[in-house]
């Protein structure tokens, strides 16, 4: 365990070195982060813009803004910590350089997942913090300590879920040639997480709760912050995330067993 923590530290150091090589990226990323924050918030103004519009049932403007802040935060985690390493796997598979990863005496899933972080994306923490601030200002009171702690647990659950979903997509790269399409599809679907899950009905709601659990990722942490999350929902979210992670791990191991390498 300590060995892997040490390795994680070293991988972060490597990413920091890379980030320092391209410091211009910091300014670009900061600008992009602000832009995406704006695009994440604008639809809410459309929905809640006029008093005649009903908004989202059960969610005031401030409450819906909490979901948006959760979305911005998670998007930052996805773009900064999950996407870069796993995107690199696709390149590795195409170029055949995954060989080098698989020949290392350490867990290959760990090595690829931690191979690259986009540290500048930490800027999303700042922008989501601003949106959280505005949201709770609108609501009129801040979250409780228990609410914040529960939300932190749910963010960890959401990160695990996102990561597991990505591992499942990346595992497809061992079989499908153009996995890019799948990653675009997933990014588009993830976009739906900016809305409280109650906007979805029927089969779509089922899909976004159990198949691609977007509700768990942003709506549940928001509900925890707003102090209205049922304890059973928390427990089942944690359980569900671990099942997802176990399935993803199993499929990853099967996939690398079928790895055929490239070239030569």
């Amino acid at each position: 365990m300590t060995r892997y923590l040490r390795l994680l530290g070293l991988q972060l150091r490597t990413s920091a070195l890379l980030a320092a090589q391209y410091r211009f990226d910091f300014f670009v990323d900061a600008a992009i982060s602000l832009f995406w924050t704006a695009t994440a918030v604008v639809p809410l103004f459309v929905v809640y813009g006029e008093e005649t519009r009903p908004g989202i049932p059960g969610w005031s403007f401030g409450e819906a803004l909490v979901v948006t802040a959760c979305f911005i935060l998670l998007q930052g985690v996805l773009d900064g910590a999950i996407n870069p390493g796993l995107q690199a796997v696709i390149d590795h598979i195409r170029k055949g350089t995954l060989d080098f990863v698989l020949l290392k005496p350490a867990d290959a899933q760990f090595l690829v997942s931690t191979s690259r972080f986009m540290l500048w994306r930490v800027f999303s923490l700042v922008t989501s913090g601003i949106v959280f601030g505005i949201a709770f200002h609108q609501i009129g009171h801040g979250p409780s300590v228990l609410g914040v702690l529960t939300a932190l647990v749910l963010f960890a659950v959401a990160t695990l879920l996102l990561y597991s979903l990505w591992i499942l997509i990346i595992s497809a790269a061992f079989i499908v040639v153009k996995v890019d399409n799948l990653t675009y599809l997933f990014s588009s679907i993830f976009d739906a997480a900016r809305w409280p899950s109650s906007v979805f009905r029927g089969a779509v709601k089922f899909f976004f709760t159990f198949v691609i659990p977007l509700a768990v990722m942003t709506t549940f942490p928001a509900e925890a912050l707003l102090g209205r999350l049922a304890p059973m929902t928390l427990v089942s979210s944690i359980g569900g995330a671990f099942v997802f992670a176990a399935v993803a791990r199993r499929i990853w191991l099967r996939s690398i067993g079928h790895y055929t390498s490239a070239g030569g």
Partner: protein
Amino acid sequence: MIRLSGLRKHYRVHKRPPGLKAALKSLFKREYEIVKAVDGIDFSISPGERVGFLGPNGAGKTTTLKMASGLLHPTSGEVTVDGHTPQKRENEFLKKIMLVMGQKQQLMWDLPPADTYELNRAIYDVPRADFTKRLKELTELLELGELVTKPTRQLSLGERMKCELAGALIHGPKVLFLDEPTIGLDVSMQVAMRDFIRRYNEEHGATLILTSHYMDDVAALCPRVIVIDKGALSFDGKLEDLVTQVRPEKRLTLRFSAPVSREQVAELGTIVKHEPAQAVLLVKQSAMNAAVAKALATLPVQDLNVENPPLEEVMSELFSRSRAAREVA
């Protein structure tokens, strides 16, 4: 150290004739064929041996190396390396081996090689003192100097390859799988790499399997060669024996102090080239002594040279023979 028995790797490959009709048909009904990349190979290699692994493109060399290093799972048969089954990818096994592929690189492109080495040190659990000592040794042997602190993208191909090799050896492996390690390098760099590999083998007693299309690599490094073609073993033995088997003749070059006619030279062997002042002949090894004695006694010989035919020619002939045999079959 390395033992392969009945090793096979078969792939199921989608097969389709050209054309739109066939493409549309293949969407619903696909035909497959089995490609036998490696089809029953047996050999064993002792600790410290240097073995050249030869064969034409698509012979199955790289597939075999990948099975021996644990990257690919064999369809059937067995491979063991120092008592380990490679496909299990046990950490203990992975720490003993290295694989260098001339056409692929593991160094991080935007960072200096030193950063990749540091990461490898942690992954391979190399104690700091051993790492420092080994890096110093590799830096001296490969004359890396300042290269390890320059971003990889700024290095030339040769410099990068030297740094790749150092990165692959930082954990002190006992088994070296080298797949075309000198590809694309200029002649002086090839010589430097060969010298280094030989020294590493001698000093560390490492076992080495080398595939290369440069026969000079093989001649300089590998007393033993294994030839495979179409996934099957076609020769395993000393390099000289392979040469003798494929080309039983040696090349006799004669330079004359006075013009000599073609007829006079023809008595000695098969003429490859003839000029009044020089002749190149192919002479059976068993008849070489007599031919040299006769030339010295009857012709105005100023200088003579006896040598094996170039290895490239030997291999080219070997591969074209096996191609012809396949076509007949």
